[in-house]
């Protein structure tokens, strides 16, 4: 019998209980156990950024973190970004405005990464945005639009 542990995970402000094998990553716990499939699995080895979410306000790669390590922290995923009434987060709105996606697969990770990038104060110029968003790959090549969206959202936040 595979050994499981019981975890209480705080995701988007709500407590979720789950029983998972210790080897389960935060990404797999979110997607397969909590059925929050907004966070995407791209490479599953920390090289693409599609799995980016926030733990205690910091952007992290959920594929390289055990779910067990995130217990006790505040986890924020793309599903929790828009307001309760459905109003989009300014970064989400900027991505729409600038058509900053094609297939959309990298987009939740890009948005979560961008929200944190702006909050960190690392979106002061296009060059800085490119550098500090470099952990999020986009195979469709929507980078120019992504940079424009982050630039606009950062300016609005200042």
């Amino acid at each position, binding site marked *: 019998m595979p*050994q499981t542990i019981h975890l209480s995970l705080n995701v988007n402000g709500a407590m979720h209980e789950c029983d998972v094998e*210790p080897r389960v990553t935060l990404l797999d716990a979110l997607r397969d156990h909590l059925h929050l499939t907004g966070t995407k699995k791209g490479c599953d080895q920390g090289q693409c*950024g599609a799995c980016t979410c926030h733990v205690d306000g910091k952007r992290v790669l959920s594929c390289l973190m055990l779910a067990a390590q995130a217990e006790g922290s505040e986890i924020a995923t793309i599903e929790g970004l828009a307001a309760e009434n459905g109003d989009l987060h300014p970064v989400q709105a900027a991505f729409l405005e600038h058509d900053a996606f094609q297939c959309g697969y990298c987009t939740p990770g890009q948005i979560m990464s961008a929200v944190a990038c702006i909050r960190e104060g690392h979106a002061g110029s296009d060059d800085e945005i490119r550098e500090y968003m470099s952990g999020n790959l986009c195979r469709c090549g929507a980078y120019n639009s992504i940079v424009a969206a982050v630039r606009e959202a950062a300016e609005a936040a200042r």
Partner: protein
Amino acid sequence: MKNFSYSRARSVDHAREAARKPGVALIAGGTSLLDLAKSAVEAPDDVIDITRLAGFDAISVDDAGATIGALAKMATVADHPDIKAQFPAIAQSLALSASAQLRNMASLGGNLMQRTRCSYFRDPANFSACNKRSPGSGCSAIGGITRNHAILGTSEQCIASYPGDLGVALTAFDAVVDLGSRKVGIDDFFLPYGAAPHLETVLQPGEIISAIFIPASKAAANSLYLKVRDRQSYEFAAASAAVGLEFEADGRTVKDIRVAIGGVASKPWRARAVERALIGKTLDERIVERASRLAVEGAVTQGDNHYKVHLAPRTIARAILTLGGLA
């Protein structure tokens, strides 16, 4: 990856005791361990989380130097105003590493312990011969695709390169690794390959890095880290250089110079021959370029990594000339 048990260390002594046993792995940020476990390079039976141990992430800087707890995150140290002011090469080596997400997760201790990116080492399913993974089984890289492999510090058993940046910057400035019961100079912390490439550091079972100390110096305060790579960001070094410079009162004669290189060696590589050639000299392009070539004397190339014989000295030269205001 193989399943394991998970528990959290109650104290550093508990972690040290547990770490003595075979099959036990400590986890901090997890960015190395989980990556390696997914490729089955590492397969622990028990994982012990040390991140909730209090007091191991402090950063303090005074006239003697900087003391950084091993659990301090790369992002925190990279952005720390005192580290940026007194040890810019170290802050830059962190800021130029990995990605923002990884820097938020990864600890300094774990960063030093990172393992080679050799694609044969990381692919046990397809390449069983790897002296680093299984001592005595042979080396799949020699005779294979070796563009990223080391030209310095290799042996007939292994040509894998150490990919980290922080270790290189620390090596330039004589950092000391605190293991709790003993302290080890950074250059001694990493072991040369010789006949035993599976032994990468001096860590004995039960030893855990608790802090890193970097002594203050004028050269450390006037330093930079130059990282040359195929992509502009989020990639390991093809060649890198951590350089520090102090001039005499005349502002032109070199009083102290530190040079360490990365991306080209089996461990972070101090280039003392370059330093010796430039102490007491006035810097100009010719003298710097000639001295920089001393760094690759004795280099052994293998297949596709010959370019590093040229790239490494040029990287050193550019770093020195930039620092010296001559680039």
